[in-house]
């Protein structure tokens, strides 16, 4: 009876105390304890060392340091910090730990594969409000497709920082030797097949020549507008007609006399006509090649991906984005820093010096001076027409949980269909069920 049955006046105090507690809970959820203890404005950045594109890069923090210097010049009251030495492999784990420990960096880089995960747990702040308010920020400056990478249902959660599309590398020397003319940038699978067929024709004089290497089901599916999974990869549609077309095409390619190659470095030996490659890979090879000047003895360039029968010249696009933590204490400062990283021409141009990708800013990537500088300094051709075409037609890859496993399963399916001599559409239905079972098992 001690606790209950007291005087009526005490009711009010209890009610008030309860509401105070509830307000306290809400404040705690909104991190008020951090606000209380904070002295100077500190902006923490989550970043990994090395290259996002799996290249060797000795200038990992160069761009970030320059961006910080530029930012701190404008905002002397804010100091920007980052933790040095987190590798690309450990980056997700590091971010997750920070998240669980309640110590999330205010601004962090989001690899495209992690976007959905951070989106689902609500780690990223919706930036629509900032974009609407900020007159300096213009979405039209970006390649439209790169922005899609950080978007979910009309909400922009991350701003593209660097991107790299898949492009078709062409061994010009080999084609010229065989007297083959490359079709324009809107070439198709049949053009592609014809050239491969011609390259593969064995003459007594020539050495072993191959049509293409590493042209896999992903490239074929992308070019033929295949939509394999729903958003969270809980369902798969493997029965579609454009999948059938893609598989037929892959089969035809593989049935060429020299259709399939096993050694991954064959392209660099100059004996393969085509290889799909990330632009960043192209850049790093080309730059190294240019520096040492003796790596390859053939001319090579890039072009768009060949269009599928019911598709288009579509490339896959990988983008590294920058996002703001949902519980950042200084959202405005964080937004300004994101802007410095992604929208400042000066910082974005540094991508071409210290990284391997392309700037998502159209004006920077398609700048003529830069193009000239790149050719002279690194021997890299920035073909404005091709890049523009590729970027406009690129397809942003849907990223989801267990992506590698699921894609391996799909690859397995495509390979076994290619190897089996049975009815493709029949096989498609069988594999459709198997893949969906697998997806169910993963959940």
């Amino acid at each position: 009876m001690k606790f209950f049955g007291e005087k009526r006046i005490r009711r009010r105090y209890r009610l008030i105390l309860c509401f105070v507690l509830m307000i306290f809970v809400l404040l705690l959820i909104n991190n008020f304890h951090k606000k209380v203890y904070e002295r100077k404005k500190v902006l923490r950045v989550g970043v990994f060392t090395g290259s996002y594109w799996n290249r060797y890069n000795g200038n990992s923090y160069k761009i970030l340091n320059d961006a910080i210097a530029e930012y701190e010049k404008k905002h002397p009251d804010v100091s920007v910090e980052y933790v040095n030495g987190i590798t690309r492999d450990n980056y997700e784990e590091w971010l997750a730990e920070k998240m669980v420990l309640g110590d999330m960096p205010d601004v962090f880089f989001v690899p495209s594969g992690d976007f959905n995960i951070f989106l689902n747990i609500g780690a990223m702040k919706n930036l629509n409000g900032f974009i609407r308010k900020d007159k300096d920020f213009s979405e039209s400056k970006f390649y439209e497709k790169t922005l899609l990478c950080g978007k979910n249902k009309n909400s922009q959660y991350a701003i593209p920082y660097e991107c790299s599309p898949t492009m078709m590398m062409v061994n010009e020397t080999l084609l010229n030797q065989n007297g083959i003319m490359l079709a324009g940038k809107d070439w198709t699978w049949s053009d592609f097949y014809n050239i491969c067929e011609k390259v593969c024709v064995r003459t007594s004089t020539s050495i072993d020549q191959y049509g293409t290497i590493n042209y896999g089901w992903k490239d074929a599916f992308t070019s033929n507008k295949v939509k394999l999974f729903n958003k969270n990869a809980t369902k798969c549609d493997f029965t579609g007609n454009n999948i059938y077309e893609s598989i037929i095409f892959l089969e035809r390619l593989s049935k060429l006399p020299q259709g399939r190659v096993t050694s991954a470095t064959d392209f660099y030996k100059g004996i393969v006509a085509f290889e799909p490659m990330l632009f960043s890979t192209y850049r790093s090879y080309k730059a190294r090649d240019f520096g040492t000047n003796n790596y390859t003895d053939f001319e090579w360039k890039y072009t768009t991906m060949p269009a599928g029968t019911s598709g288009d010249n579509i490339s896959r696009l990988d983008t590294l984005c920058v996002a703001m933590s949902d519980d950042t204490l200084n959202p405005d400062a964080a937004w300004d820093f994101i802007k410095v990283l992604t929208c400042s021409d000066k910082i974005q141009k540094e991508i071409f010096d210290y990284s391997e990708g392309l700037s998502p800013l159209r004006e920077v990537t398609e700048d003529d001076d830069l193009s000239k500088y790149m050719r002279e300094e690194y021997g890299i051709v920035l073909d404005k027409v091709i890049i523009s075409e590729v970027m406009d037609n690129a397809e942003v890859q849907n990223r989801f949980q267990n992506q590698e496993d699921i894609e391996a399963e799909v690859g397995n399916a495509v390979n076994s269909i290619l190897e089996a001599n049975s009815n493709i559409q029949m096989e498609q239905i069988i594999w459709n069920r198997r893949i969906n079972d697998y997806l169910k098992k993963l959940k």
Partner: protein
Amino acid sequence: MTFERSIEASAEDRIDKVSDKLFELMLLFNGIIIIFNTLITSHAIYGFVKEGDAFSLITRCQLNIVYWKIPSIAIMLYIGLLLILSIECHNHIELISKIWIEGMIVCGIVIITGITYNIIVLLIFADVMRNRIDWKKKLIYIVGLTIFDLLLSSSLPATYLNITPVSVIWTYYRKDISSALSGAMNMMFLINVFIFILYMVFLTLEQMSEKERIAMLYKELSKANAQLEDANKRLEEYTEESVRAAETRERNRFAQEIHDTLGHALTGIVTGVEACIMLMDIAPEATKEQLKAIEEVARQGITDVRQSVKALRPDALERLALEDAILKIVDETQRSTGVKIDFECSTSLMNFSQDEEEAIYRIVQESVTNAIRHGKATEIKIKITRENELLKINIKDNGIGCGKIHKGFGLHHMEERLNLLNGRLEYEGSDGFTINASIPIRWGNSDEDGNIAEVKDND
């Protein structure tokens, strides 16, 4: 009888205490469950971080809360729930809003702790049962709460809300340890349910015994009621008796009046007529004279009777203020008898109660009548003064007076009246006849003007 009742009351208290103690035990147990669960959960999350497995944890269960916030928020929410539970409700609106707040808090606790078996709803349940509302309405609350409980227990909220997935987080521990932990949780849940059942049993017992107590109280009440009725009856009888006594008193008064006025006149007339009979043949002239005197006496008698009737009627006095009433006597007496009356009043005669007024009036009237009738006075002086807390009435005449005072009905009656008011009466018959009456004044000095106005209104 009081001893019996106290024993019963203490028994009642014991049952009361059991159900309340059980409720407190439930609160305690739920608190332990919440603290136990959240501490283990947050420890497991921290363990994931230490082992470098945070990313897989996040991807698997989409956890987005800082580990130490789970126990702290859950405990705060629970304290809030305890506070709300301790508030007593007096009507349905209060009860509904209370349940609403409790429901919200419980939702919060379920989301933050991920306790799948939402035992906490039982607390709200138990609390509602404690309220003294009739069973029909209680049933509505029970149905509502059951639906709420079922909704919480279903997997529905887990799909739409971001409920902390405890089972996934606890996989951090070795299989045997995690199963031991969840076994402990289940045990606590079961104990909690058991306490709830016990609580319900004791609450029912308590409410039943309370019904019995109410029945007993009702019996006592009807007994007391009967007693009261009896007393009422007796009071009525007593009232009747006192009315009868008043009647008797009134009759005595009538007798007095008749004696004073009519009796006196008739005696005079009878004596006069007897004398006339004797004188008629001897001296017709003297008889004529005598008859004239009788006529006068008879007239005087009539006047006296009239006055008496007027005096008997209470409204005679009520219609007029006391002073006016006295002035009227003076005036009437002067006119009818030719006696000179000197009336002097140096104090206000307002604010006397009815019995006092009556007494003063009667004293003046009686004295004047006595002076004329017995003292054959030709001059009377009436003086009313106030001395401190006493009202003094001094009436003096120039009549024959008397050596030895025979206390007649009138004088005796006057004395009686004054005694009732704690007053005193003095008389002396050596030089004419003097009456001194003193009445203690019960009212203060104030408010005289207001009363004048009131009296005038009444006029």
